[in-house]
C-alpha cells in the first residue's frame, strides 16, 4: 500500500543587489558579461591586509525588502564570519549575517491567501565564479572574481510551504516584490536570483518537523523549482513507503532529465564557526537610517494594490490580481482608468480589455486605448431587441408608409429604413432592419 505524505518545504532565495559598487569595496557590482577578473581589488580578492567597508546602499536595500515583508528590524545588527573552505572563497570565510540579521519574523501573503512566514533576511557577499573547462585534455577550474563581493540578500522562509506549486507561487511573489522595490532586476538567467529548496515529508499533518531535510541547490527557474520539488516529493515518498530512511543531503537538479541527484551528504551538521566580523563595527541602524521614513518611502506592494483596485475601481478579486501582477500593467491600467473616466468608460471594461488582451497595451498609450474603446463602442451597430423596438416605434409613427408599401410602393421600405437610421443615429444594422421590416409588413 502506498501512503501519501505531507510535504514540508522551506525556501532560501538569494538575490544579487544591483548597487553601483560591491558589498565591501568600490569595484563595480555590474559584473554580467564583463572580461573575467577585470573588476577586482585587494578587498574582493581577499589579499593579505585588505579590509571590508560595508556598502550603505546595499544595507538600505536589504532594509527596504525587510520592511516590505513586514520584518522586525534588528536595530543592533552586525556582520558575522562564516568560515569554510572553497576555492571561490578567497578569504576562507564569507562575510554574512548569523546572529543578528537585518530583518526577522516577516511574512508574505500569496494570491491564494496562503501566509508564508519569513524567518529572516540577511545581507552577505557573493563568492567568485568557478568555470570548469578542459584545457589540453585536462579538467581545470578557472576563477572569475568579478562576482566576488557582489551584495547578496538571502531571504529564508519558514518551512510553511506544502506543495511544489505553493513554493513556486512564493518564489514568484518574492521575485515580483524585489522588482517592485527596484532593488534588483532579479534576472534568473543572469543568476541574479537563485533558489534553494529544503524538502522533507511527514506522515501526519500535525507531526513535528521531520528529523531530516534534503536541500536542492542552485535552481535557476520557477519551473525547475516546481519540477524539482515534485520529483523530490515522489522520490522521498517512494523511499518512505519502502520504510527506508532518507539521509540528510544536498542535491542538485538536472533539468534535462527532470531528476534531482546527490551532490554531497550532509550527515553531520555544518560547522561554520560563525563569529562577529571584527573588521566591521556593529550596525547601529538608527544612526545609519531613519526607519520610519524608509517605511514611508516604500512603494505600494502587490497586496495593497489588489485591495485598492477592488475598493477604488470596483474590480473583482480576479481582475485585481491579474492587473497587479506586474507594476507595468498596474500603472497602465490606472492611467487608462483615469483617461476613461472623462469619457465615461467603465474601469471594469478597461480591466477586461487588458486582461483579455483584446487591445494590445504594448502598442497603445493609455489615452489611445481609451479612444479605441470609445470608437469601438460608437461603431457597434444597433440590432436585435433594440432594433426591434426602434422598428416598432417607426412603424407606429408612419402609418402612411405602411399603406404605401402594402400597395406595392417599394421605395416606402427605403423611407422606413431611413427613419430607423435617423432613430439610431445611423448605427442600425441595415440588413437586420430590412429583414425585420419585411416580416412586420407581411
Amino acid at each position, binding site marked *: 500500500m502506498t501512503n501519501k505524505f505531507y510535504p514540508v518545504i522551506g525556501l532560501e532565495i538569494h538575490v544579487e543587489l544591483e548597487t553601483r559598487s560591491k558589498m565591501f569595496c568600490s569595484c563595480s557590482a555590474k559584473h554580467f558579461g564583463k572580461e573575467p577578473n577585470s573588476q577586482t581589488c*585587494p578587498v574582493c580578492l*581577499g*589579499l*593579505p*591586509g*585588505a*579590509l*571590508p*567597508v*560595508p556598502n550603505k546602499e546595499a544595507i538600505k536595500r536589504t532594509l527596504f525588502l525587510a520592511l516590505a515583508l513586514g520584518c522586525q528590524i534588528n536595530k543592533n545588527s552586525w556582520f558575522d*564570519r562564516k*568560515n569554510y*573552505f572553497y*576555492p571561490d572563497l*578567497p*578569504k*576562507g*570565510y564569507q562575510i554574512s549575517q548569523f546572529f543578528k540579521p537585518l530583518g526577522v519574523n516577516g511574512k508574505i501573503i500569496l494570491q491564494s491567501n496562503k501566509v508564508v512566514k519569513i524567518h529572516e533576511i540577511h545581507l552577505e557577499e557573493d563568492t567568485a565564479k568557478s568555470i570548469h573547462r578542459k584545457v589540453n585534455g585536462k579538467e581545470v577550474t578557472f576563477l572569475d572574481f568579478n562576482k566576488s563581493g557582489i551584495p547578496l540578500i538571502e531571504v529564508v522562509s519558514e518551512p510553511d510551504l506544502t506543495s511544489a506549486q505553493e513554493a513556486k507561487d512564493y518564489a514568484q511573489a518574492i521575485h515580483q516584490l524585489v522588482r517592485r522595490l527596484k532593488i534588483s532586476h532579479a534576472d534568473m538567467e543572469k543568476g541574479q536570483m537563485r533558489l534553494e529548496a529544503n524538502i522533507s515529508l511527514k506522515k501526519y499533518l500535525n507531526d513535528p518537523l521531520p528529523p531530516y531535510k534534503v536541500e536542492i541547490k542552485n535552481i535557476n527557474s520557477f519551473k525547475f523549482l516546481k519540477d524539482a520539488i515534485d520529483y523530490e516529493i515522489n522520490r522521498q515518498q517512494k523511499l518512505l513507503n519502502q520504510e527506508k530512511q532518507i539521509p540528510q543531503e544536498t542535491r542538485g537538479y538536472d533539468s534535462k532529465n527532470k531528476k534531482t541527484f546527490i551532490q554531497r551528504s550532509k550527515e553531520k*551538521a555544518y*560547522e561554520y*564557526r*560563525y*563569529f562577529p566580523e*571584527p*573588521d*566591521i*563595527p556593529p550596525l547601529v541602524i538608527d544612526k545609519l537610517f531613519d526607519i520610519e521614513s524608509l517605511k514611508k518611502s516604500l512603494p505600494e506592494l502587490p497586496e495593497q494594490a489588489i485591495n485598492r483596485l477592488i475598493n477604488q475601481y470596483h474590480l473583482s478579486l480576479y481582475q485585481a490580481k491579474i492587473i497587479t501582477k506586474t507594476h507595468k500593467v498596474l500603472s497602465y491600467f490606472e492611467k487608462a482608468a483615469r483617461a476613461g473616466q472623462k469619457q465615461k468608460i467603465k474601469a471594469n471594461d478597461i480591466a477586461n480589455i487588458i486582461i483579455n488582451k483584446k487591445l494590445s497595451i504594448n502598442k497603445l498609450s493609455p489615452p489611445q486605448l481609451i479612444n479605441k474603446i470609445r470608437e469601438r463602442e460608437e461603431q457597434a451597430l444597433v440590432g436585435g431587441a433594440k432594433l426591434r423596438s426602434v422598428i416598432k416605434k417607426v412603424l407606429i409613427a408612419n402609418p402612411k408608409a405602411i399603406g404605401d408599401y402594402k400597395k406595392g410602393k417599394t421605395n416606402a421600405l427605403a423611407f422606413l429604413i431611413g427613419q430607423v437610421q435617423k432613430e439610431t443615429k445611423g448605427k442600425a444594422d441595415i440588413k437586420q432592419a430590412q429583414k425585420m421590416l419585411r416580416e412586420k409588413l407581411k
Partner: protein
Amino acid sequence: MSGKILTEKGISFIEWQKRIKKGKVSSQEIVQYYLKQIKKKNQQTNAFLTINQKALREAQKADREISKSKSADLFLKKPLLGLPIAIKDNFCTQGLPTTAASKILENYLPPYDATVIQRLKKAGAIILGKTNMDAWAHGSSTETSDFGPTHNPYDLERAPGGSSGGSAAAVAAAMAPAAIGSETAGSIRQPAAWCGVVGFKPTYGRVSRYGLIAMASSLDCPGPITQNVKDAILLYNILSGPDPKDATTIKEKPVLINYKKPLPKNLKIGLSQKYLKLANKEVAQKILEAAKVLEKKGAKIREVSLLDPKISIAVYTILQRAEVSSNLARYDGLRYGRNRSYFGLEAKRRIMLGTFVLSAGYFDQYYLKAQKARTKIIKDFKQAFKKVDLIIGPTSPTVALKIGEWEKNPMFGETQDVLVEPNSLAGLPGISINCGYNKEGLPVGLQIFGPQKSEELILRLADQLEQWQK
C-alpha cells in the same frame, strides 16, 4: 653580560629632519649611512628580512626635489622628505616582499601599499627595508620567525622581544633612525622595552589597519618604534587619522600633538600594586624610581585598583586565537604558492585552539564568555580613569630573556605580555619608554597608558619624563 653588544647611540629622526631641512646632509648620505649600518650589523642581529634595493634611488629623487624646490612649504607638506624608515614585515609594501616572517608568503609581492605606507610615502619617507618579526606576529620574542630569530643588540644571546623585534632591534642598533611596528597586545611596547627604545601603541582605530596583515583584527594597531618620544610624536601625527578603507578607524580627526605645550598641573597618575607584583624586583624598583621623579615634578601618584591582569591572559588568548584561526584561512594552499604545511608550530597551535573555541558547543563557553569578560575589563578601566588621568607600570615583567626561553613555554607570549594585555583588550593607547637599566645593563621599560583617545596626554607626559630622567 654574556653576548656581544651592538647598541649605538644614533641620530634621532627629528635631528635628521633638522639637518636635511637646513641642507646639512643629503637624503642619499643618510640612506647610505643606514645601509652601511645594516650591512655591518644585520648578520648578527637579523633585524632586517629585506632591504629596499631602490632606497638609494628614492633618496636621489628626494634630494633632487629638495634642491629644485624654492618653496619653504616643501617640508610642511612632506615633513619626512628624504628620511629612511624601517617597516615591520607585516605591512604590505607594493612591489617589496611582504612575508609576515612566514614561509607561506616567502615570495609574496603585494600589489598595493598599506595605508600606513601610503601616509609615510606621502610625507616623503623612504622605506629602508622590512624588519623581522614573529611569524604572523605570533609571539613576543621574534623567535617564531621562519627566517630565524632577531638578536637583541644589548646582548646578542637575548631575544629582542616581539613580535616587532626586528623593528626595535634595528632602532636600538642604529640600523634605522625609526621604525614602524604593529601591536596586538604588547608587540610594539614589549620589544621597545627589551631593546631600550620607545614604542607607542595608539588607541585601537586611531591608525588604519588597511594593508596590515591581520593577526587579531579586533586588537591590531600600528605604531612607531623610535629612539625618543619626540620622534614617536612626529610619526604618530603622520600615521593617525580616519581611513575610509578601514571601517574600524575612529571617525574624528586626532589633535596634532605639540610637545612644547606644557603639561596640565596636578596630574593624577595611577600605579597598581597588582601590576608591580607581577614584575621582578629590579624592574619594579625602576618603575618606583620613575614614579618618584614624577612626584617630584608635581604629579600626584595614586594607587589604583584594577582587575587582576592575569584574568586578561585567558580572555586575550581565546579572542586572539579565534580571530587568528579565521584570519589565516585565506592561506589555503591555492594562493600565494605554499600550502598550509608551511605554517610554523606556533601558527598551527593557534589555528587549532582558535578553531576549537569557535566550534559549535564551545562557542558560548569560550568565545562569548571571553567577550563578556572583555566588556568587564573595559568598564574596569573606565572606573579607574575617573580617579586618575594616566596609569604607569612596568611594560614587561622582566628585562630581555635569553633566546630559547620561548620554546619552553607554549604560553610564552601571553605571560610576557600580561601587563599590556588588559589595556590592549580595552583598546587603550599606551607607550613604553626606557626607565633605566638593570645591573647587567639591560634596559627596563616603563609603560604609560590612558583612557581611549588620550594620546596627547600620554605622549606629552612621556616626553617630559624622558627629559626629567636624564
